[in-house]
């Protein structure tokens, strides 16, 4: 019988974390942040590598990476199939319930789930695999969760321990739960005000009829007011409440079906730009230099401005060994995030939204990045919003928008100024 061990490994960069994950699992999880050449080389390495024993449950560095099937019902059905001959719908619902997930998501495409919901689905899957998985390897297993849901991790950990199975946790330095060494730095940012008008915006998602039926759904934000918001501000709320959809509406990538949502800044601009939580995909496999050159190919002035912002933010990370090597074609998630932010700042929008800016960064790097971006944005008259449930951002925020679920389709927005 295996003796159960519980190990926590911490790293200071996302790239080192992925390296460790690859070494532990024998699976090649590509470091897209290093560019397409590195990706293809790594993929070849995986193809030509000898097959390792792969009988483990895992949570990948990005929660969607280990969910190979199209929807939660299929993911759980397949995970349960080796232990239950024909898992029923009720059995699948039970696993979803157990991890605080609404059974109605069982037929929803995985890609439309929020980061937190994906992570909870990984938990449910890991529990379903507990009887036959030899080990459990989890990368950033708490990051996407609201603190009210941390107990689900404890339950899962307890389950694996009771079955005498080893657990390896791989996290970044300063992880809220596993390595709570939050810096005591005082981040002093002079607030900047802008007007946010919320008039009961509503978003409808049509029904999906093929290949699996999924009912239509809608999210209605029950709030009708104009607020003078103090930047930097925090958009927070429970997992799956609709934070990312709200940011999508603000940045006009999610169409509003009724009502309205608009911003008006002191620099006269009314647009909003967003840096997604999946910053790596957002770069379209481009390097920071190519990203900036491509976006501003017809606007030389803005290109110079963006390059200048990029260099200015990069220079703030003097002690960051890997980032300083970025001139030698070694790119990191941090440099990609900086490039995305620099590109948006050069656009001079009214509002810049950073969705989970801490994902893939150590706590120290994430805090320094957001602090420096806030200073630069305010200098340009751009308001800054942070979309997150991480408690670490409270010390940056001058105000907070809290999204609270009223019913399955209704969300309330509360504003609080500090």
């Amino acid at each position, binding site marked *: 019988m295996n003796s159960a061990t519980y190990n926590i490994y911490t790293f200071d960069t996302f790239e080192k974390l992925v390296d460790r994950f690859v070494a532990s699992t024998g699976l090649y999880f*590509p470091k897209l942040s290093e560019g397409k050449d590195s990706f293809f080389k790594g993929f070849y390495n995986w193809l030509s590598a000898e097959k390792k024993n792969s009988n483990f449950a895992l949570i990948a560095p990005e929660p*969607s990476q280990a969910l190979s*099937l199209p929807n939660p019902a299929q993911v759980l059905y397949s995970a349960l*199939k*080796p232990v239950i001959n024909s898992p029923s719908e009720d059995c699948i619902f039970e696993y979803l319930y157990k991890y605080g997930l609404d059974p109605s998501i069982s037929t929803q495409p995985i890609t439309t789930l929020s980061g937190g919901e994906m992570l909870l689905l990984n938990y449910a899957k890991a529990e379903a695999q507990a009887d036959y998985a030899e080990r459990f390897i989890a990368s950033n297993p708490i990051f996407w969760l609201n603190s009210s849901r941390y107990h689900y991790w404890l339950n899962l950990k307890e389950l694996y321990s009771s079955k005498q199975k080893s657990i390896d946790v791989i996290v970044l330095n300063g992880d809220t739960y596993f390595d709570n060494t939050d810096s005591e730095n005082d981040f002093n940012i002079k607030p900047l005000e802008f007007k946010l008008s919320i008039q009961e915006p509503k978003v409808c998602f049509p029904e999906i*009829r093929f*290949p699996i039926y999924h009912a239509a759904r809608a999210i209605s934000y029950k709030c009708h007011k104009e607020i003078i918001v103090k930047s930097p501000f925090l958009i927070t709320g429970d997992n799956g409440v609709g934070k990312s959809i709200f940011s999508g509406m603000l940045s006009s990538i999610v169409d509003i079906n009724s009502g309205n949502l608009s911003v008006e800044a002191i620099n006269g601009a009314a647009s909003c730009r967003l840096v*997604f939580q999946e910053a790596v*995909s*957002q770069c379209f496999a481009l390097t920071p230099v190519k990203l900036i050159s491509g976006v501003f190919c017809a606007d030389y002035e803005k290109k110079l401005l963006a390059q200048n912002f990029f260099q200015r933010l990069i220079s703030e990370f003097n002690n960051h060994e890997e980032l300083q090597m970025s001139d030698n074609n070694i790119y990191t998630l941090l440099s990609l995030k900086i490039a995305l932010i620099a590109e948006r700042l050069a656009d001079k929008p009214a509002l810049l939204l950073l969705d989970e800016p801490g994902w893939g960064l150590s706590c120290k790097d994430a805090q320094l990045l957001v602090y420096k971006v806030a200073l630069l944005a305010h200098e340009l008259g751009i308001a800054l919003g942070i979309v997150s449930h991480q408690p670490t951002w409270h010390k940056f925020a001058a105000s907070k928008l809290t999204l609270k679920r009223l019913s399955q389709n209704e969300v309330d927005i509360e504003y609080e100024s500090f």
Partner: protein
Amino acid sequence: MNRFNFFKIHLVKPFWLRFIIFIIVGLPLFSNFPALFISQILSKFFNPEFALIISYPLISFFIWLFCLPSLGLNKFLDYMSAAFLMALTTVITSSLLQNLFPFIFMENAYAASVRLLRLYFNVLAVFPWSLTFINSFSPDSIINALTQLRTPFREAGLHFALALRVFQHVGTVVSKLLLIWKERYPSLLVMRHTGENKKIKFIFAWVRWLAYSVIDWVYASIILTFEPIPAMVNEFEILSERNKKNDFSEK
């Protein structure tokens, strides 16, 4: 709604029967024989040349009817808009090349037109047919069914299931990339930052931007499609191995 279930191909069971029906219905897309057969029947009523020409849209129409009940009107129209875009781009490009390099395409104008017409209707039918085909099979069901087989088809079937899932994943990747693209370029086909370029300069900049955008899309689509393959392979192996063990222990 349920009265149409009989016509929904993705609900046909077992999965191998569904596969055979798909192949039979899609046969005209890969072979000239069905079009010639239809044109022979139609030539009894019409001019033989007209009969041949009309057989292509008839086949496409039949394939659309085959896909429509499964897809539903909205999804069908989504697929058709992409199909029309692709068909027009292919035919216009082919026609341009044919006129620019006539020495490569050694055929008369009538034969070339019929060929392009066939190509046009083929693309219009292939697009919805192939997307319906790819999404009508569930890889995990295939794996579960295959574990009960003891033939060499088992390994091939597992590879087929994996390939199918990768193709299904392409759709996810494209919709994800489209959202990212919309954030960066709200007009989708025009760059966000045009500077103060005059018309001619802007056109040159736009053509350059468009060319680079196509390259970016190709690379990003390939990379993001390949990204989860190692995890998929791992998961499919676990599924297959565990199901096989259970199957043996039951016997």
